[in-house]
C-alpha cells in the first residue's frame, strides 16, 4: 500500500510537471523551405544510412531482448513528450528539449535515430513545425548528433565509474545542447554568421538542457529501481 501511494505521488508529480510546462509557441527546428535545395537533399542523404542502421538495430534488440519492447516504446513516448514542451528560457525566447538522450542511453544512438525521425515527421506533417524539406537537417541534429553525443558521454562516464544518475544527467543535457549547436552550424554553413545562430539556439537551450537532464534522471531513477534486470540485460548498468 505504501509503495502504491508513492507511485501515485510520483505519477501525479510527473503529470503535473508535464501539464504545467506545455506552452504553445513555435520552437527550435529549421523551418520549412529555409534550407536551399542542395543542402536540404544533402542532409537527407546523410541521414539515410543512420536510419537504415537504426531499423536493423531495433529489430536485433527486440529479437534478442523481447522484454525491452516496452522500454523502447517508453523512450519514443518520452521524446514525444519532451519535444512538445515549449519552455521559456532566460534569453526571453522559447524552445523545447529533445528527449532523445534516454533512448540513446538505453538502446544506443542508431535506434534512437528512428525514434527521433518519427517525432520529427509527426511535427512536420501535423504541426507545421520543422518541415519535410528540412527533415534531413533536423534529423541529423536531433536524432543523430544528439543521441551519439548522449551515448558517448554516458559510456565515458560509466567507464570513469560515475554514479548512474550523474552519467544520465550529463549525457541527456549535453546531447540536448549539442543538438542545437549543430542546428546553428547547419544554418551558419548556408547563411554565414554562425555566432548569431549560436546565440539564438545554443544559449537559449542551456537551461532547457539542464531541465532535460533532470527529467531524464527522474525516469532513469524509476527504471533503476524497478527495471534493473532489463537495464542489466541491455548493458546499461
Amino acid at each position, binding site marked *: 500500500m505504501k509503495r502504491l501511494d508513492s507511485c501515485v505521488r*510520483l505519477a501525479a508529480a510527473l*503529470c503535473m510537471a508535464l501539464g504545467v510546462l506545455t506552452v504553445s509557441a513555435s520552437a527550435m527546428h529549421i523551418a520549412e523551405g529555409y534550407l536551399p535545395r542542395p543542402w536540404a537533399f544533402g542532409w537527407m542523404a546523410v541521414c539515410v544510412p543512420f536510419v537504415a542502421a537504426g531499423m536493423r538495430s531495433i529489430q536485433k534488440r527486440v529479437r534478442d531482448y523481447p522484454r525491452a519492447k516496452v522500454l523502447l516504446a517508453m523512450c519514443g513516448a518520452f521524446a514525444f*513528450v519532451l519535444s512538445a514542451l515549449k519552455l521559456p528560457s532566460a534569453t526571453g525566447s*522559447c524552445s523545447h528539449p529533445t528527449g532523445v538522450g534516454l533512448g540513446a542511453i538505453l538502446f544506443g544512438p542508431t535506434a534512437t535515430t528512428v525514434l527521433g525521425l518519427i517525432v520529427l515527421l509527426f511535427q512536420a506533417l501535423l504541426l507545421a513545425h520543422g518541415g519535410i524539406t528540412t527533415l534531413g537537417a533536423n534529423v541529423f541534429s536531433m536524432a543523430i548528433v544528439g543521441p551519439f553525443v548522449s551515448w558517448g558521454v554516458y559510456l565515458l562516464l560509466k567507464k570513469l565509474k560515475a554514479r548512474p544518475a550523474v552519467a544520465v544527467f550529463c549525457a541527456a543535457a549535453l546531447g540536448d545542447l549539442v543538438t542545437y549547436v549543430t542546428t546553428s552550424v547547419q544554418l551558419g554553413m548556408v547563411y554565414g554568421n554562425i555566432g548569431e545562430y549560436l546565440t539564438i539556439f545554443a544559449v537559449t537551450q542551456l537551461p532547457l538542457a539542464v531541465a532535460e537532464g533532470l527529467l531524464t534522471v527522474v525516469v532513469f531513477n524509476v527504471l533503476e529501481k524497478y527495471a534493473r534486470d532489463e537495464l542489466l540485460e541491455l548493458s546499461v548498468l
Partner: protein
Amino acid sequence: MKVWQKNTILILLVILLAAAPLWLCREAEFGGADGMAAELVEESVPGFEPWFEPILEPASGEIESLLFALQAAVGSGVVCFILGRITARKPDNKDA
C-alpha cells in the same frame, strides 16, 4: 532517500527552471527560437522567400496549442502507463 522523494525534488527543480525566466524576463515576448532564426535568415538574404510551404498548417494558434497539448498528453500517457506497469512489480533493487 527514497526514489519518489528524489524525483519530487528533481521535478520541482525543473518547474523552477521553467518558471524562473517568466519572472526574470517580464518584458520578453517568449517567441519561438526558430522564428528568430527565420528572421535572421531574411535579414541576411534580402528578398528571401522560403521555396516550400508547410503541407498542413494549423488553422490558428489555438489549434496549434491543441495539437501540441495532444502530443504531450499522448506521450505522457504512454510514459506514465509504462512506468506504472513497471513500478507495480517488486523492486529489482531493494536499496534504491
